[in-house]
């Protein structure tokens, strides 16, 4: 059984990625009936197409359990959430190659003890392993089948 889980999504649009995230969240809920699982988002019409419990983003800081995160702003925000045991970051890019910033900025984000990385591809896996820490696994499409054993 997995720990209580929050899926933190700042942006949910009608894209394949967003639908895949919500579909996986729904599968996680269906397959873990005794675990509390919900999506944190401010507002999105896309959620209406999926039967998942939704809480406002601002409530995420009170959540107790693990979090799944998809972007850098969420990583920064969630760093100080005191009730979160582990944060799973779905890494689909290498943001430090797009924005040249001081090393401290990236180090504060990725050298975090309660952060686990799920890589989108073998290349992303290798780069995070080289630069930061070994990812817990690879999930190319963030489907339930590829995620369930990593959480």
């Amino acid at each position, binding site marked *: 059984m997995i720990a209580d889980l929050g899926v933190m999504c700042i942006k949910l649009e009608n894209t394949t990625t967003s639908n895949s995230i919500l579909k996986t969240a729904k599968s996680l809920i269906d397959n873990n009936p005794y675990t509390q699982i919900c999506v944190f988002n401010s507002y999105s019409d896309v959620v209406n197409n999926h039967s998942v419990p939704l809480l406002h983003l601002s409530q995420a800081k009170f959540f107790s359990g693990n979090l799944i995160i998809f972007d850098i702003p969420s990583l920064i925000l969630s760093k100080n959430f005191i009730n979160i045991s582990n944060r799973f970051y779905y890494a689909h890019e*290498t943001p*430090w*190659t797009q924005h*040249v*910033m*001081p*090393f*401290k*900025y*990236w*180090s504060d984000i990725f050298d975090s003890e309660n952060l686990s990385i799920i890589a989108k591809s073998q*290349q992303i896996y*290798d*780069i995070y*392993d*080289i*630069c930061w820490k070994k990812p817990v696994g690879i999930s190319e499409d963030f489907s339930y089948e590829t995620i369930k054993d990593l959480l």
Partner: protein
Amino acid sequence: MKLFIQEFDDKFISNLSLIEHPNIVIVNDDISGNLYGIHYKYNFDTYVFVSSLMTNEIYQYILEFHKSKRIILYHDIVNDQVLGTISQFCINVGTLDSNNIIKIPTLINDHIFFNMNKQRSKHIPCFIDHVEILDEDLLSVLYPNKKFNIRLFGSSLIRHPQNIGLLSEKDRAEVLNSSESCLMIDDLYLPEVLSCGTKILRPKEGNLIEDKNSIMTNTETYAQFLIRILQS
């Protein structure tokens, strides 16, 4: 002594700005059109200007105030316009070989770079702030050719997934103290690496070779060097 240093992202200027000395007050800032404002407001007695950042304003300032102020001109590049003209009114320092230029020796800020006896990680830093392209030997040990835990630092020009950000000198000392070894492509940071007790690795045909032969040569601190050139 009140010293003003023109802001510049370079090893010498960055370290000069970090000098800690009881008799020296240092301000490091951008000038851009405000040199006379700085002069009249703060009345520094010594100024450090950078040759590659020479402007008409600095040129005029040196002509006007070289008798009442001590002016150090740092020649980071060969600037013929500067060398032939106003350099005669300044204390000239640089890495260039020239009669009128005091050659910068091997320097270190020993209050920043020392062995802090910290726990060290598997990551291998490599400083690339002074290069514009990565050479073949370095590329041969980087991803996708190899998967060594190399972290490249300091370049905003080079796009490589292992290039993970810019470093201040204090961050560099932290990074060196938290790494067992450092990959070196030249000897620019040799005194800093040795002072932090970090092993030296060199890239060679896809492998990392430990360099046990590099030793600390005679080094001066930045503060000693500054005082020496001001007294010369």
